[in-house]
C-alpha cells in the first residue's frame, strides 16, 4: 500500500484535493457514489496484481527487459509474409501518426477535427486512385474483416445467400469470414489447381448458380500467384454474382486494379502502406466499390464526404449517409461500426502521398523482379523446388522442400541459426503441399540478401 501516493496520471489523487472535492459534492466519502452497487457485488478482495513500478524509469527498464527477449526482423533477414509484410516504413509515416493531435483525437466533429476528417477523406481519395474506384470506406479492422464485410454487403445487395470462397484464400481469412457471415450466408469453397496454385476455373464454374451472391478471391492469392482476374470476372458475372477481390494495395503500381477487370467489391489490408508489422498490430482493412447508391448503402463503416461550407470556396467534410450505420440504427443498421484502425488510414494516406504514382509503380515492378530472381535462384538449389513453377508471382511464392527430406520446421530452425527467418510453414495449413514454405520478398531485400538466403538454404538442405 502507498496510501499517500500521488499518481502522475491522476491529478486529483492529491489527498487534500480529494477531500475538498468531496466536500463540494456534499458526499462523506467516495463510497457514497457507489450507493447503487449492492454489497454483495463488491469485489471480495483487492486485485492481485504485480507490485507497481511507480517510477517511469523503473517501468521503462522492466518493459525494455521484456522487449529484449524478442528478436525482431530488423536484426535478421526475414522472408515471412502470409498476410503481414516487412516493407520500408517512411519516417514521415511514423512522424505523422506519432503526432499527439492525431494519436489522441477521437470522435470530434468536422470542425474542431477538420484535420482528421480531411486526412481520412484524402486517404480514401488516394486509395480511390490506386483502386480506380469512387467509393472507399474509412478503415475497418483488417483485411479479414474487410473480406467478411464484403461478403455480407454482396449478400445484402443481391438478396442471395450463397458465397463461394476460393480455396487459395488465407485459411485465417476463411475462418473469420465463415464465423462472421454464417448466420445469413451459406459458404462453400472451391478448389485451386495444384499445379499453378491458382483458381481452378472449372471447379468454380461447377459451383456457380443463381443463388450465389458473390465469389470471394484474393489476387494475388495466398500463394502469391497472380490470378487471371478478367477471366474470373467474366465467369462470375455470367451467373449474376458479384466478384469480391482481396488485393494487396502494394501490388497496384504494377497489377491491374481489380475494379478495372470487373471486381464489384475490392477489399484488403493497408498494413503494407506505411505500417510497421507490430506483431500483427499494423493492420487495417479497406473496402471499395463503384459509386452506386444501392451498393453504397450496404457499407457498415463510416464514409466521409466533401462538401461546401457557408464560406464560398471553402471545403468541409462530414459523414455520408450516417443512417446506414449501427451508430444511428443499432441492430437495424448494417452490421456494426466503431473504433477500428483510423490512424493507420491516415498513415496510409501519408504513404501514398509520399510514394506518388511513380513510387507505387517502382515498388510493384521492383518486387515482381526480385521475386522472379529469387524464384530462379531457389529453383536451382538441389532438392528444392518451386511449388507452382509456371505461374507469375507477386511478393511471395511457395517453396517445396519435400525432395530434401527435411521438414520446414527443421529447415527454419537451421536458418534461424544463420539469422534468417525462413518462409511461413504451410505444412499444417495446406497438407496437400507437404513440406512447403511461403517465402515473401519486398523492396527491402537486396540482391545480396536473396543470394544469402539461397546460399544458406543450399547449406541447410544439403543431404
Amino acid at each position: 500500500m502507498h496510501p499517500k501516493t500521488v499518481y502522475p496520471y491522476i491529478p486529483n489523487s492529491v489527498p487534500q484535493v480529494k477531500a475538498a472535492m468531496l466536500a463540494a459534492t456534499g458526499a462523506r466519502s467516495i463510497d457514497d457514489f457507489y450507493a447503487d452497487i449492492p454489497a454483495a457485488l463488491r469485489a471480495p478482495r483487492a486485485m492481485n496484481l504485480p507490485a507497481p513500478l511507480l517510477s517511469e524509469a523503473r517501468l521503462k527498464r522492466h518493459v525494455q527487459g521484456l522487449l529484449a527477449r524478442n528478436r525482431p526482423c530488423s536484426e535478421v533477414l526475414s522472408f515471412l509474409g502470409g498476410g503481414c509484410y516487412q516493407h520500408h516504413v517512411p519516417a514521415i509515416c511514423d512522424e505523422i501518426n506519432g503526432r499527439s493531435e492525431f494519436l489522441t483525437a477521437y470522435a470530434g466533429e468536422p470542425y474542431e477535427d477538420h484535420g482528421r476528417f480531411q486526412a481520412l477523406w484524402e486517404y480514401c481519395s488516394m486509395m480511390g486512385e490506386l483502386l480506380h474506384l469512387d467509393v472507399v470506406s474509412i478503415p475497418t479492422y483488417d483485411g479479414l474483416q474487410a473480406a467478411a464485410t464484403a461478403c455480407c454487403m454482396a449478400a445484402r445487395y443481391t438478396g442471395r445467400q450463397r458465397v463461394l470462397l476460393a480455396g487459395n484464400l488465407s485459411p485465417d481469412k476463411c475462418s473469420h469470414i465463415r464465423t462472421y457471415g454464417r448466420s445469413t450466408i451459406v459458404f462453400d469453397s472451391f478448389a485451386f489447381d495444384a499445379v499453378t496454385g491458382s483458381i481452378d476455373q472449372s471447379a468454380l464454374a461447377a459451383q456457380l448458380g443463381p443463388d450465389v451472391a458473390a465469389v470471394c478471391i484474393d489476387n494475388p492469392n495466398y500463394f502469391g500467384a497472380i490470378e487471371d482476374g478478367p477471366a474470373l470476372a467474366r465467369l462470375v458475372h455470367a451467373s449474376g454474382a458479384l466478384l469480391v477481390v482481396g488485393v494487396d494495395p502494394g501490388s497496384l503500381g504494377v497489377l491491374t486494379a481489380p475494379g478495372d477487370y470487373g471486381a464489384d467489391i475490392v477489399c484488403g489490408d493497408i498494413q503494407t502502406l506505411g505500417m510497421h508489422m507490430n506483431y500483427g498490430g499494423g493492420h487495417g482493412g479497406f473496402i471499395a466499390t463503384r459509386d452506386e447508391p444501392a451498393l453504397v448503402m450496404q457499407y457498415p463503416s463510416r464514409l466521409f464526404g466533401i462538401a461546401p461550407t457557408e464560406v464560398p470556396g471553402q471545403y468541409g467534410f462530414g459523414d455520408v449517409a450516417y443512417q446506414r450505420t449501427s451508430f444511428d440504427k443499432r441492430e437495424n443498421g448494417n452490421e456494426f461500426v466503431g473504433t477500428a484502425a483510423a490512424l493507420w488510414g491516415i498513415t496510409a494516406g501519408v504513404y501514398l502521398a509520399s510514394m506518388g504514382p511513380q513510387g507505387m509503380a517502382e515498388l510493384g515492378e521492383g518486387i515482381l523482379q526480385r521475386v522472379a530472381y529469387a524464384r530462379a535462384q531457389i529453383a536451382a538449389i538441389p532438392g528444392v523446388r518451386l511449388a507452382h513453377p509456371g505461374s507469375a508471382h507477386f511478393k511471395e511464392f511457395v517453396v517445396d522442400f519435400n525432395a530434401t527430406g527435411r521438414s520446414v520446421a527443421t529447415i527454419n530452425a537451421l536458418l534461424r541459426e544463420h539469422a534468417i527467418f525462413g518462409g511461413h510453414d504451410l505444412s499444417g495449413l495446406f497438407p496437400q503441399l507437404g513440406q512447403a514454405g511461403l517465402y515473401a520478398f519486398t523492396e527491402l531485400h537486396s540482391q545480396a540478401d536473396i543470394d544469402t538466403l539461397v546460399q544458406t538454404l543450399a547449406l541447410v538442405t544439403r543431404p
Partner: protein
Amino acid sequence: WDEPVIFELSQPGERALLLPEVEPAIAATAAAPLPPGMRRAQAPALPQLSQNRVLRHYLRLSQETLGADLNVDIGQGTCTMKYNPKINEQLARDERISQLHPLQDESTVQGMLQVMHEMEHVIEEVSGMDAVSLQPRSGSQAIYANIAMVRAWFEARGEAGQRDEIITTIFSHPSDAACAKVVGYKVITLYPDADGYPDLAAMQAAVGPRTAALVITNPEDTGIFNPRIAQFVQAAHDVGALACYDQANANGLLGITRARDAGFDLCHFNLHKTFATPHACGGPAVGACAVTQALAPFLPHPRIVKDGQRYRLQTDEKTSIGKVAAFMGAASIVLRAYAWVMNLGADGLREVAEVAVLNNNYVMRQLLQIKGLSAPYANGKSRIEQVRYSWRELSEETGVHAEDIGLRAADYGVHYWTSHHPYIVAEPATIEPTEAYSRADLDEFVQIMAHIADEARSTPQTVTSAPHRCPTRRVDTKYLEDPRQWAMTWRAWRRKLAEHGAR
C-alpha cells in the same frame, strides 16, 4: 491554416521518396508473364509532392485536429478519454516490438508473448473471469466475439435452434444490439423503469426459452449503475441463457466490483478506454474478451499457453470460434495497456476508479447549477463515471440545440459529441471526466458550458451559427446525403463537379 486538398498541391514530377534500386542481375532476370490484362496500364493518379510538402500538409492537418492531449477532453462521454502516457507510446514504438512479424517462431517472441499473457491475467483479475482473449481489434469486435461464443456454446449443447433472442437495454452501446444481429439473433431492447433504472420486470417478462443471452452495459451510457444487475443475470440464468457484460464503462469500477461478482459468463473491456491506450482517431484498438472456465474452449484461437518458463501458441481447440481478427490482434496496443497497469498496480487502478467517480460527481454538481441543463433519470442519485445530460429546457427556451452548444464549445477549445442515437435523452450531452483531469480543468469546462448557456439566452445566433474559430464554418449537409452530390473521394468529387456542377 487554409490547407488545400492534397491533390491540389500536386506538382508533376516531384518525388517525396525514392525506392531502393533494383540491381542489374535482378533486372536481367526474366519473369513469368502476367495473365492477360493483369498489368496495370496507367500509373495511379496519386499526387506528386516533395517530402517537405507532404510533411507540411499533414502537420497542418494535425494542428487542425483537437486531440485529447490538447484539451480538457471530458465531453466525449462513453469514450473514456484519459491520459495516454507518452512512455507507453515510446515503448510501443521500440523496434523490438514494431519489427516483429506475427508468424515468427515462438522462440523469437518470448517477450511479446509474456506481455500478452500477463495482460490476460490482468484482465482476469479485474473481471474475476477465468480466461481471456486479446485478439479482437475493438470493443465492438469483442462484443461480436462474445456473442459468437454464445452461439457456439449453444451449438455445442444442441440448443442453437431454440435460442434465437438476445436481450439488451436501450442505454447499452449500439454495438451490443448490432453485433447480436450480425451473429443471427433477434434483439429485444428494454427501456428504463419509472425511476430511470433498467426495468427488471421488463427483463423478467422478456426472458424465456428462446433467450440465448442478456447483453448489457453497466453502468449504462447514462452513468447509472443498475443496482439489480445480479437479478438480471439470474433471470437469464434461470432460463438457461448466458449473461454477457459490456464493460466499456468499467472505468469507475476497477477494483470495486467485477463481472464475476454479478454472475456474468462473458464480458469485455476496451483497452483504448479503460486501459489508457490512445484513441488514435478511432483505432487501432483492442477489445479484451473474458469468460468463465466453461466458455474458455470457445475463445478465438490461437491462445497463449505458458509451459514452465516458455510461452507458446495453441490452436488445437476444436470448439474455438476460430479467428476474429488477423493474427494475435493489435499487440502494440496490448503493450501500452500492460505498461499502464504495471505503473499503477492494484492500488493505482482502484485510485483510477475512485477519482474518476469523484470527478464525475463533482462535475455533475457544478453543471447542474446551470439553468436549463438537467440529468434525466435517477434524479438526485449519484452516477458512476459519466452522466448523460439534457439541454432540453434550454433548447425549448432559446431554440439552441445541444449540437450547437457542442460546436460553440469548440470555439473555446473544448468540445463534446452528441451522436447518441436514438435521442431517448433529448438534446443530449454526455460528460465523462475520467481520472485524468484536475479540479482546475473540470472547473474550466464547467465555466465554458455556463458561459455558452448565457450566450444561448443573450445572443443565441452566436451559438447556432457556431463554430466561429474553427478551420471551417458549417458544411452544407445535403452533400452528405444526396447520392448525386456525395463524394467520398476526390475522383468522385471532380466527376460530379464536371457532370452536374456538384456545387
